[in-house]
């Protein structure tokens, strides 16, 4: 089993003619993920990484009706149109790599995706990897085979770097990952920690999950709720970064866009709330692997 992607995943890369889009396509192909084609308006007919470019997702979908996943690498000012195009074309999973999309555009796309039943992963998400099965985006980068190997621990973070770093510490301890998901660091996100935990709950391969959390926002509190409702029942270990931020003025942003200093939503308060529902709390992110190892 796996989460978010499987052997039937068929990918279109929106913005594949750009530098990062081409790198993304190559990263996926190198990891044996099925990338069917790319989309860039007005560049239909070109080829990138040996794959055809279409003018729109609709055109691509007409050619390949089983295309079910889009990865979006367009500049922030073009992101809203690209995401809406994928939603309209009926793509089920949309991974948005683009950073710094205006929040109004993100909210617009998330309202549209909810209506159509599409899942957005991101924005500002480097993607997801199911070791040995495939990856969306560039999680793991070129060192992917040194860092990832099939295993039983799920990894989730709002930080792309920490998604990698936690996965690496699992590997160093001789463990593997069932999947690693970068949900993105924006204030609004299409797929939250709690959403991913619900997926891991159903995934037979996953025996436990580690999360790198952070100060600001309320997404960690959604985890508390998911555990209370028994939507997630497997072992979970969390590190919450940003303790130093508690001395900064309220309303200040430090770290990801969603990491705004708010009383009651600091690293310490989140750790305390999670501990009350049995989540294991790490003092340093390096300790996460020791906490979860007995369950692997």
């Amino acid at each position, binding site marked *: 089993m796996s989460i978010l992607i499987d052997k039937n995943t068929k990918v279109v890369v929106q913005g594949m003619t750009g530098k990062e889009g081409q790198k993304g396509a190559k990263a996926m192909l190198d990891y044996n993920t099925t990338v069917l084609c790319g989309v860039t308006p007005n560049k239909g007919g070109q080829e990138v990484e040996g794959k055809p470019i279409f003018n729109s997702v609709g055109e691509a979908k007409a050619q390949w009706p089983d295309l079910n996943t889009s990865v979006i690498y367009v500049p*922030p000012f073009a992101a809203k149109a690209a995401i809406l195009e994928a939603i309209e074309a009926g793509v089920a999973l949309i991974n948005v790599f683009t*950073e710094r999309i205006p929040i109004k555009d993100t*909210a617009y796309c998330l309202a549209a995706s909810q209506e159509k039943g599409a899942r957005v992963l991101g924005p500002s998400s480097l993607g997801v990897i199911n070791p040995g099965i495939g990856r969306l985006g560039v999680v793991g980068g070129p*060192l992917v085979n040194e860092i990832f190997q099939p295993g039983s621990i799920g990894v989730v973070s709002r*930080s792309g770097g920490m998604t990698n770093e936690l996965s690496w510490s699992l590997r160093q301890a001789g463990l593997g990952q069932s999947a690693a998901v970068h949900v993105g660091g924006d204030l609004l996100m299409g797929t939250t920690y709690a959403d991913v935990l619900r997926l891991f709950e159903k995934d037979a391969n996953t025996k436990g999950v580690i999360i790198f959390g952070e100060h600001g926002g309320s997404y960690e509190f959604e985890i508390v709720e998911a555990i209370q409702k028994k939507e997630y029942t497997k072992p979970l270990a969390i590190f919450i970064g940003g303790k130093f931020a508690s001395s900064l003025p309220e309303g200040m942003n430090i770290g990801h866009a969603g990491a705004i200093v708010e009383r009651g939503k600091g690293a310490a308060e989140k750790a305390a709330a999670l501990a009350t529902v049995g989540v294991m709390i790490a003092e340093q992110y390096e300790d996460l692997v020791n906490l979860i190892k007995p369950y692997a």
Partner: protein
Amino acid sequence: MNLYEFEGKNLLAKHGIKTPRGVVVRRGDDFVSKYNELVKLGIKDVVVKAQVLSGKRGKNNGIKFCDNGEEVKKACEELFTLNIRGQYVAAILIEEKLAIAEEHYISIVYDTNKKQPCLIYSKQGGMDIEDVAEEKIEKVWLDIREENVVGVETLHATSLPIDELWKLFLNEDTRQVEINPLVKTKSGEWVAADAKIAIDDDAFFRHPSASSGPSVTDWTKFEPRTMLGRLPTSREIAVKKIDEGEKYYQGTAGKYIELDGDIAMILNGGGASIANMDALAQVGLKAANYTEYSGNPPREKVAALARIVLSKPGLKGLWMCGVVANFTNIKETFLGICDALDEIKPTYPIVVRRDGTESAAGFALLEECAKRNNLNIKMFKKETGMSATAQILAEMIEK
């Protein structure tokens, strides 16, 4: 970015929400003659309000009531000496005192759980909304795709300026708009007695300085600001410029917050960076700054950032600590770091921890740079954990 009250009120007025008549004064202004401009309009009783970037001003002596020039002068002089809950007083707004009949509360913010904006309204305004009983607060979730507010018929009937506030929220790319109190005057008008507005920095490309017509607010005209209880430093202002321009989104290198410590920090990514700030504190060192770059920025951006970070006087160490990068190119970004080190040639200890694309080439460049400049540097790749290298830096500094 949080706006000052007077800036927020300009936006409210632009969208048809009435605000009190007033003048803004700065340090060094002739406060009495500014007040007299209001007197000429027939205004005698005024409210004198410190302009700060975050809350609880009223409870902390940031607001004074006056009815003559001498009192206004005294009030302004006093307010400019204050630091209100850690916030620097950038300006003072002197405005007409309203004849208040009722004080209400209204705001629109993003609900991160529902991922849509939420209109929050209460008849109990003038106090912190957290202190108002839950049953006295009305919440209506809005759909960002709707140009007009729907589902608020009962509130519309009250003639509250909801449509105006929604237009402002949509067209000015705000993250939050709050009017507290929204005053109903004795003559029955709604007037915004305060304004707390935050704009979305990521939408700045829609609010350019070019002549885009009077309907677009020019965000480049907003004065530089920080929430750290002081004016922004020259370094903070300079770093912001790195990510400006047409290719602003190609990597992020425009983040620099100046702090009190003496360890220069060049970190990577929003998540690892905050964990590493915690790790530095755990080994007893103090950061001179918070800085990160991410998203594969080009050499020039990294070099510009590193030059500014290393220009702070009194540094005792440099910690360059980042994750195993997913897609940032280590060679390209280290070229930028080397450019800065070649110029500045620091003598204090340096610890580097990083890995990722072309890291072998990147570390080789850094090693050559260290040799030609006689740097006191230790370098680590992914085999060594990030937190462990904070301890190594602490030991090098102790020697």
